[in-house]
């Protein structure tokens, strides 16, 4: 069982709404839903090999949230020495909810925010499983 907080790494994507969805979902999990059990690590720090950011990944459960098929967050987490326990992709959430068409990068539309909430709910569940709090064990 994890002794450190579960690390959440969103993709930082700046070119498509799917990147913003990962960012929004990461904030929802780390700020609103599971602040006691999670911490957010910026991908930009890992890109440069920041030692503190890399240390945060050591012996921690890591959840990556990607926004496209290039899966930068997952790749960077692994390159930085992290063990990715769960890998999510906002495009998968969209595929399962095609009626929700996300728009906006600086500011998501309502559909994008709803996708982020759905993604966050899945991540919450994963966090609970990784911390042993699933199924009412909290």
């Amino acid at each position: 069982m994890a002794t450190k907080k579960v690390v959440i790494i969103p993709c930082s994507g700046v070119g498509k709404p799917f990147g913003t969805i990962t960012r929004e979902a990461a904030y929802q999990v780390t700020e609103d839903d599971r602040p006691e059990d999670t911490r957010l690590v910026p991908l930009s720090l890992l890109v440069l090999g920041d030692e503190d950011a890399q240390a945060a990944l050591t012996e921690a459960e890591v959840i990556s949230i990607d926004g496209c098929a290039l899966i930068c967050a997952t790749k960077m987490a692994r390159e930085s020495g992290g063990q990715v326990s769960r890998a999510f992709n906002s495009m998968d959430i969209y595929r399962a909810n095609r009626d929700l068409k996300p728009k906006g990068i600086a500011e998501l539309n309502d559909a994008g925010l709803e996708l982020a909430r759905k993604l966050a709910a899945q991540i919450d569940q994963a966090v609970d499983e990784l911390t042993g709090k699933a199924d009412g064990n909290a």
Partner: protein
Amino acid sequence: MPELKQKKVGIVSCSGEELPEGTVSRLAALKVLEELRPGETVTICLPLFLAGGEGDRAFAKFYPTIAIDGCDKRCAYRATEKYSNTPAAGIVITDLIKEHGLPVPTGCRRLDQNGLALAELAAALAAEQVDALLGKQWSSRQGQFLQSEDRPQQSQEPIQATCSCGSGIPVQKLMLDGQEVTFIALPLIFQQFAENQKAPSAQVLDELMNTVKLYNSLFPELEKSARAEIANAYQIYWNAERCQNG
């Protein structure tokens, strides 16, 4: 460095999720890309320098870049420099706060008014840098670049952030002494040379090789082979172009 495509400026932001200043950098970059200079700028996600391919890492070799960072770690500037090329300019949000005596922003997820004002300021500064790099003059009244008489009017491009994800810079692979070598930008270089009516010749090949070396590091032992293969590939390209254009 030759201009291979319509010249644009690359905007790279740190997007750091941990600090409000990271969100400011992200919003400032998006404001330049989507509103202030949509036709003149392009972006790349910072992690793509590592996670992407050769084309992605060549980003800053093709575009003069402006890095917008949230803090003095300057991840965007340093990563661009480390993995691609030295940015032409850099803006650091925490420096802007000090220089202009502005209040510190709050709210990583939803910026407060201070953060939004900072994003406006950073975006305006970045837009000025774009103009300087492109040698163009922006008309605030007309909301477009002032056109010189001899400069053709450019068509308006869709107003959205131009992302290089998955597109990158075109590459071409050639077999050199039994090993496959990827040449960044080779298709664009061929295109440029052909458009300039540079028919294959020994002199043109010298020029071609000099251009290829701007974007590609060649091992000395492969240079002879590379020269022969590139000459061959350009001849094929040239012939195909001539056939296509009659």
